């Protein structure tokens, strides 16, 4: 992959060459929407935007530090035991972020539940360690981790926004100690009415597992449609 990026980028500007490592994860190889990695948290925790942000940033943190450490240690880890070594490194950072979040964001930790410790087995992190950090320098690995992590966060926020808002007609940030974003007078009764005539009420299905599949499927179909139009023209 390294070679591909270098070949694509003919300009010799150092900044332009390196920025590609960052934007790669954001758009071209977005882990959740294009590589379809880490589907378990993508589908399970995106019931609330707050969960999406928390999960995305926690994953970014783990990805950043594990990529950094693995790229620094890449010449010292024997090839035969590299997967156990990567897992040990990743698990230590997951424990760190888990304890930190339990201390400072206990409500968010409760909502994320078991999916926070399960970042250990998130295939994005092991995938980047194996595919990128184990072969590249620390600087490149940091850029890659940031791009991948923020791309994942973006995907989670997109999915959770499309699930939480139609489902409950509000966006609940109380897990971060902030308020509830809504235009309804009574946030507990998600019914939208004009002149006492109900025109919409929150569809619970979007906050249920079935809704996660619908929304992810629709996003992927939409993305594929755009790509097909780019590739084959408007036909």
């Amino acid at each position: 992959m390294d070679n591909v990026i270098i070949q694509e980028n003919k300009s010799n500007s150092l900044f332009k060459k390196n920025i590609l490592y960052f934007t790669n994860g954001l758009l071209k190889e977005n882990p959740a929407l294009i590589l379809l990695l880490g589907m378990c948290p993508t589908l399970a925790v995106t019931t609330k935007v707050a969960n999406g942000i928390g999960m995305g940033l926690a994953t970014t943190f783990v990805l950043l530090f594990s990529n950094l450490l693995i790229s620094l240690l890449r010449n010292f880890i024997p090839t035969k035991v590299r997967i156990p070594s990567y897992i040990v490194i990743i698990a230590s950072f997951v424990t760190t972020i888990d304890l930190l979040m339990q201390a400072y964001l206990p409500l968010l930790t409760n909502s994320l539940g078991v999916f926070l410790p399960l970042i250990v087995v998130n295939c994005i992190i092991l995938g980047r360690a194996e595919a990128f950090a184990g072969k590249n320098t620390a600087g490149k690995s940091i850029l890659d981790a940031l791009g991948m992590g923020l791309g994942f966060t973006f995907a989670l926020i997109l999915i959770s926004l499309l699930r939480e808002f139609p489902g409950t007609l509000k966006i609940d940030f109380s897990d971060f100690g902030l308020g509830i974003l809504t235009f309804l007078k009574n946030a507990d009764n998600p019914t939208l009415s004009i002149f006492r005539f109900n025109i919409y009420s929150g569809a619970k299905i979007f906050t249920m597992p079935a809704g996660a599949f619908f929304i992810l499927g629709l996003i992927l179909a939409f993305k594929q449609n755009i790509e097909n139009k780019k590739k084959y023209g408007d036909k």
Partner: protein
Amino acid sequence: MNNNNSNKLLVSSSPHIQNYESTKSIMWTVIIFLIPAALFGVLSFGFNALNIIVASIVTSVITEIIAQKLRNQRITINDGSAVLTGLLLAMTLAPSVPLYIPIISAIFAIGIVKHAFGGLGQNWANPAIAGRIFAFVAWGKEMTTWSTPFTLDGTTAATPLLAVKSALMEGISSNFSGPLSLLQSLPKEILKIDIDYTKLFFGYKGGSIGEVSIFLLLIGALYLLYRGIITIDIPFSFIGTVVIIAWIFDGTLYGKGFFTGDFVFHLLTGGIVLGAFFMATDMVTTPITKKGRIIFGIGCGFLTMIIRMKGGYPEGVSLAILFMNMLTPAIDRFVKIKPFGFEKSKEVK
């Protein structure tokens, strides 16, 4: 056309038997024979039921046009399949739901269940059933608020199955001979009407818009059977399984032994007739072989009775049909047609 003797001996290539039915004629015939039952629902539950039917049909047709435009297909709203989906969907909704429920469910049924998977003939589930389940899961409270029949004053009452379910959930003190005597012993404000078999049969009861009049649905179904538009195998095995399971096991819920269940009550309440004759017989989402269709019907009946007797919901016809729709490819795979003249190849040892 040509009566020359020499032509009588010529054999053209297959197919030899022509059927003059087309998608269009089938769909519109089914629609015509569903309309009496739908109108009965409007008569019983008032103007809101008519609004729901119209909203559902119009949204289905518009969604079909948009989806076919987007997919660069010929627009085929004349064949009536979108109208039929809209009508069937509306007939399975509760009569007092707000209008956004039929509209969004119809968009889901046509746009996602039908066209996202390839349009007519490619859908993985009956769009009307999937739309109903979508509405049921998304707006559970609205979808289980039932109007009192023939009062038009906006009061709500329980359906017979819901009343039986909640009475059984609370636990019954004395022994009843069956669900009917249990319903007759309940306080008046639950059902708000008297109930006997005749009233259940002709539709004087609460329920979804199109499922209440068993009589009108059966008349339509008999004509469709006579025309050969639907075949008897799925309804027969579906209803037969319900009868057998209800007869054997339903009595145990009322403190009586096996083989005492009141299966007539089970057939006359809920959506079994609408589901068995008009929804489970959808040509696209049912197995292609006779044997497969009988397995399909048995599965539907079995799941319906499991949900009614043991599940948390009072009614399970639509869930059962949706589940069996998803099993259809598996049934087709294991129950294969044996082409005429072919023998199973013997395994070489």
